[in-house]
């Protein structure tokens, strides 16, 4: 019991100085989330940036803490889906894709279908949904493109779909049509099975 007390007293608060922008109460809550995230090997920078975003936007401490906690949870979910070797950018993009409505299985499918880094593929998935493409369609399309498309191709694909949407095409149809144009066979059977053709050698 003495030892525990000692440990509590000499607890090292390795605090990022940028968090001084937060008031003390909010700061200590955010720091405890950051510390627990660090302890499990997840990246802390996204959490700090989310807190700083909240400060700049004048959000209440409660809102900031809630956002940071939610992000910590989602980072954990993303890592479960993407595996322990996922980089910080991949995890952040993974969180975006999950929040857009992609299931963890889709993330795992991407990991199996594509060489790292997966950042762009996950980002395109999230951004397509942000443009209005239904999550299922976006997931299917990105999974279909994943094995062979380069990052730049995926970005071009997303831009083309957005252009079509801005010209009035229904988002789901826009994605499907563009996918057809790339020569990828795009159908529901592929989507539900999550088994795209031409799988590269699986990651070690």
């Amino acid at each position, binding site marked *: 019991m003495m030892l525990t007390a000692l440990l509590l007293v000499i607890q090292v608060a390795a605090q990022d100085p940028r968090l*001084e922008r*937060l*008031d003390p109460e909010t700061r200590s809550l955010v720091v405890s989330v950051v510390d627990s995230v660090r302890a499990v090997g997840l990246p802390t920078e996204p959490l700090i940036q989310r807190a700083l975003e909240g*400060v700049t936007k*004048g*959000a*209440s401490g*409660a809102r*900031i803490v809630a956002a940071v906690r939610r992000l910590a949870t989602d980072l954990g979910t993303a890592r479960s889906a993407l595996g322990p070797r996922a980089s910080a950018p991949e995890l952040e993009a993974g969180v975006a894709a999950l929040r857009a409505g992609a299931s963890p299985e889709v993330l795992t499918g991407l990991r199996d279908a594509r060489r790292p880094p997966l950042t762009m593929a996950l980002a395109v998935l999230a951004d397509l949904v942000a443009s209005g493409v239904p999550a299922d369609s976006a997931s299917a399309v990105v999974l279909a493109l994943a094995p062979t498309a380069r990052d730049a191709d995926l970005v071009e694909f997303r831009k083309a779909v957005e252009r079509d949407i801005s010209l009035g095409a229904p988002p789901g149809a826009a994605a499907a049509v563009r996918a057809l144009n790339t020569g990828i066979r795009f159908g529901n059977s592929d989507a539900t099975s999550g088994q795209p053709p031409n799988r590269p050698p699986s990651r070690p």
Partner: protein
Amino acid sequence: MSQPLGINRVEASDAELVRRVRTGDIGAYGALVARYRDRLGRYAVHMLGDREDAEEALQDSFVRAYRSLERCDDPARFGAWLYGILVNRCRTSGARAARRRRMFVRDVDALHGATHADQADRVEWSDEVNRALARLAPEYREAFLLKHVEDLEYEEMVRLTGAGVSALKMRVKRAREQLQKFLKEAEHV
């Protein structure tokens, strides 16, 4: 969490913004202008008695400050330095008596539009104050505003006006006496 927590916001200091302006960052100067616009504007409006004149003086002062920024010895005190430029600019503003009178024409529409007696009273009182202020000699008005409205110390006022402390104290005293006199007269109209 049952109650909202306070947040500390961070803004770039004047010194930091001045440093950036000096490396060519005009946007940083925009931030300084926005920061000081209303505060300096209050002095200019009361000193000159006319909003248009005040905005013109303000604009001139900001531009002049930018162009002579290397002469600001202590960037951390940019505001005080800028103040000096404005005080001087207001002195040379030149009396545009006709436009000044325009401000003190009773705002009839405001009075008619006032739905409560105290709103009308506020407009009247504001008119009285402005009229009394305009009747002060410029150096009395300047000293009174710097001391009582802008809350400067006499040492600071010496730097801004070039007058000595005792002269400034005398001016402030005379300003107070005259304001009391003018406003009691107004009461007995």
